[in-house]
Structure formats: C-alpha cells, structure tokens
C-alpha cells in the first residue's frame, strides 16, 4: 500500500507542525491554500490550530468550504485541533452566545471559544487516554493555547482523551476533534488514530 496522502489546511496557523508529524508517520502531505488544492485527491484531512475566524473566512472566500464539507460529510477522515475543532463543531459559542464563526458544523459537540481566557490562561497538562487510543496507561501531554472547551457531546461521540474527567479530544465516526495541540508534542497517538480511519 502506498503512503497515505494527507491534505492540511494551510491558509493560516500551525499547519507545518502537523505536516512534520504526519511525514514522521510515513505520510505524504500537501497544503490546501485555494480551491484547486481542495479538488485534488487525498486520504485524510487535517484542520490545524490558528485563528478560527481567519480560517473560516478564507475557507469561504477562497472557495474551499463546499468541497471540503462535502468530503467530510461523505466520510473523509478528518482531524481538527483547536481552531480546527471549532470549524468542525456543530455548536460554537463565545461567552455563552452563538459565535459568528461559520465552520463545517459536522461534529456533534458544543464548544466554547477562548474558554480558558486570554494567553495568560494558556496551560500545559497531562490528560487521560481512553480505550480508543493505544497504550492508554500512558498520559497524553496536552497544550492548550487560548483553547476552546468541549462543553457537551452528542450521541455517538467517543472520548479519546480527558482532563479532570472532561473530554478534550473526541471522535465521532471519521472525525476527530481536540481542544489541545497534539502537533506540538512528541505524542503522535492522535495522528495515528486519524490514519487508522483511512479505509
């Protein structure tokens, strides 16, 4: 079998970090910057950290939104981290009010943007791995950077990583969303889980 080909949204944010992890796992990666990129064939999709307002705006204005949403709806394996989780979430709130960010809305979770406050609220922690991840006795290093919080999860949502009993990384079908940044740590288990979703 040839190397999996993973598309990484690259309009803004920490996309190079995801590419480095994926290449370390033997994947071929390419960057999605405009519509023609989104129409190329790929086996999995990564939505990186960054500013979700910017990413959502550029997804629409550079005409990538519809082909990518269609791909996700048709079962394309996708990993969204931080801003990427916000793009995937069905319900996005800011200070309790609906957010203006227009994402894909395909993952049945509710998230609160900037839930831990501004940069001085950013933090590191160790999370608990659950059954969906290998070596679950090993803690998961977590980085939260002006992070969103998963406030509720719908039916069929499996928790992959939790922190103090609250979900921080979840999977539903072929979609994985995390509030933290696995691409900034040496633990590649979440990226490996994404690649396992490729048929």
């Amino acid at each position, binding site marked *: 079998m040839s190397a999996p080909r993973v598309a990484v949204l*690259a*309009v*803004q*944010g*920490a*996309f*190079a*970090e995801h590419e480095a992890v994926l290449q370390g796992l033997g994947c071929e990666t390419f960057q999605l*910057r*405009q519509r023609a990129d989104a129409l190329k064939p790929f086996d999995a999709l990564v939505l990186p*950290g*960054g*500013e979700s*307002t*910017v990413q959502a*705006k*550029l997804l629409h*204005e*550079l005409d990538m939104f519809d082909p990518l949403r269609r791909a996700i709806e048709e079962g394309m394996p996708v990993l969204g981290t*931080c*801003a990427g989780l916000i793009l995937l979430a069905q319900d996005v709130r*800011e200070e309790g009010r609906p*957010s203006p960010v227009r994402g894909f809305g395909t993952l049945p979770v509710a998230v609160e*943007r*900037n839930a831990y*406050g*501004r*940069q*001085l609220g*950013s*933090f*590191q922690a160790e999370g608990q791995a659950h059954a969906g991840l290998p070596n679950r006795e090993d803690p998961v290093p977590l*980085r939260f*950077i*002006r992070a969103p919080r998963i406030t509720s999860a719908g039916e069929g949502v499996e928790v992959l990583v939790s922190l103090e009993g609250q979900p921080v990384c979840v999977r539903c079908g072929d979609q994985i969303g995390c509030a933290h*940044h696995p691409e*900034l740590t040496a633990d590649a288990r979440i990226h490996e889980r994404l690649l396992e979703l490729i048929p």
Partner: protein
Amino acid sequence: MRANGMTEQGIQGKPAEERLALNRELAQMLKGGVIMDVTTPEQARIAEEAGACAVMALERIPADIRAAGGVSRMSDPVLIKRIQAAVSVPVMAKCRIGHFAEAQVLQAIDIDYIDESEVLSPADDVYHIDKARFSAAFVCGARNLGEALRRIAEGAAMIRTKGEPGTGDVIQAVRHMRAMQQELRRVAALDEDELFEAAKQLAVPLDLLRAVHETGRLLVVNFAAGGIATPADASLMMQLGAEGVFVGSGIFKSGDPARRAAAIVKATANYQDAELVAALSEDLGEAMVGINADEIQLIMEERGQ
C-alpha cells in the same frame, strides 16, 4: 522580589520555561497571518472581519507617531480594554524599550502579547526588559540574527523585523529579513568549532547559537513588520522567509481599509500565487502615501540593539 518587582517564578507561579514554551506556541498559531495596527474598537472589528489573526492596540499608528513627534508612550489601558472587548482574536500592545513597568501594566490587563517596540520612545538606552521574568508573551524587533538572539535570550517568544515604522517604505523590512535569512544559512553551515567565535562576533549566548546551527532556524516565529502597504508587499516578505506580517499604518492610512486589509490577508495566505495577488491588487483605492525611508530624520530602527 527582584528590582523589577517580579518574583523568580513569574507572576502566576508557573515555571518560567513552561510559560515561555506556551508563549512561543501562541506565535506558532499566528503563522501565515496578518497582525494589524488599530486605534479604536471600530477599527479592531474591521480588522477582525477582514481576517486579521491578531490586532495591535495603539493610541496612534506609527505614521502619526512620527508626524506628532515628542515622547510616545504605552497606550491608555482603557483603550486596550475596549479593543479586547470588541474582538475575539489576540490583542497585542506596545511598551517602550526597557520600560518594564509599562510591561507590568500590560500584563496586569491580560494582554495576549507585549511588543517591546522601537516605535515608541525608548525608556532605557542600555537595557531591554528582562522578559523571562514575565508570564506575558513578548515580541521584539530585530534587524539581524544577533539582535534576534539577544532578544530571545532576554525572553522574547516571537521576533519581527524592525522596518522603518510609519514610512510605508518596505526597504528596511526587506533588508532585515534578507540579513536574517543569510545569517541563518551561514550559521547552519559553520563547523562546530567555529560556533564559539561566531557567538562572540554576534554577541549572543553560545547555547542559542548552537540551537540555530542544529536546526537552521530562528527558534521562535519571525514576522515581517514595517512599511507593508500592499498585497504584493506581503507576498514579497513571505517569499523572503517571513512567517507572517504586521501591517501598521498601511491599512488605516489608506483609502479603503476594509478592502485593503482583506486583500493583504488573502495575499499572505497565497503569497506564491502571482495571479491571485494580481487580482487582489486591483482597485484597492489609494495606498498609504508614505515617506521615503531615506528622507526621514528620526531613524527608529536603530533604537535598542
């Protein structure tokens, strides 16, 4: 307590290394984006809607600071707070070089990033702020690798070119970015035993230089700043190796700020696509008039070396 009022561990008691890592990581999240100078909550909203990945809250943009002359200081905290309330993207603000009390004030109002900036009047002509003592993140200007590594040694979590602020002339930013990239390549190519002398010449700590030598990179994110006024300027700086751009006076000193801001954001995301940059450059209205950087009296880029 130390002389600058901070404890050994920083204000919130988190280990300094962990804070520095988190602050460097926020800069990583800003990559590929455009950080825009704004002076009102209304401008901040226009910038956010145009796709700014962060905003720099200022009382006056650099072109007006230059025009006004006199002493230029940190902005009124109430202005910064109003801008924080107006947008959801990170908010940065400037303090004077060496003015650690202004930096403490900015940290106290929960700023996302402090720019210890040569655009304001320097408060100290010898010492920069000991940024490692703070929990807040700092970005600093640098004209070359030596300046950049000295700022990183002091605790800067992000670097930008200094440009010549407020002129609308991109030549200094180009000069600084080229100098940086050339020196990064040169250091990467040195032999191990040549690093000692190189560290001495550059006046930088050996351990930082060794890390540059091993990775071929600057250790923190490096943005372009100074004189960027058009989509092509942004594309130029990205092609020269910038990881994102600051746009100061170039947006709100132009004819149609919202349109120009959105065009610069898209050009930064697709800097290698000349056809798209061409389309984005059409009909933007009047660009900032600008001042030729050779014709000015006050050279800000030489502040704080």
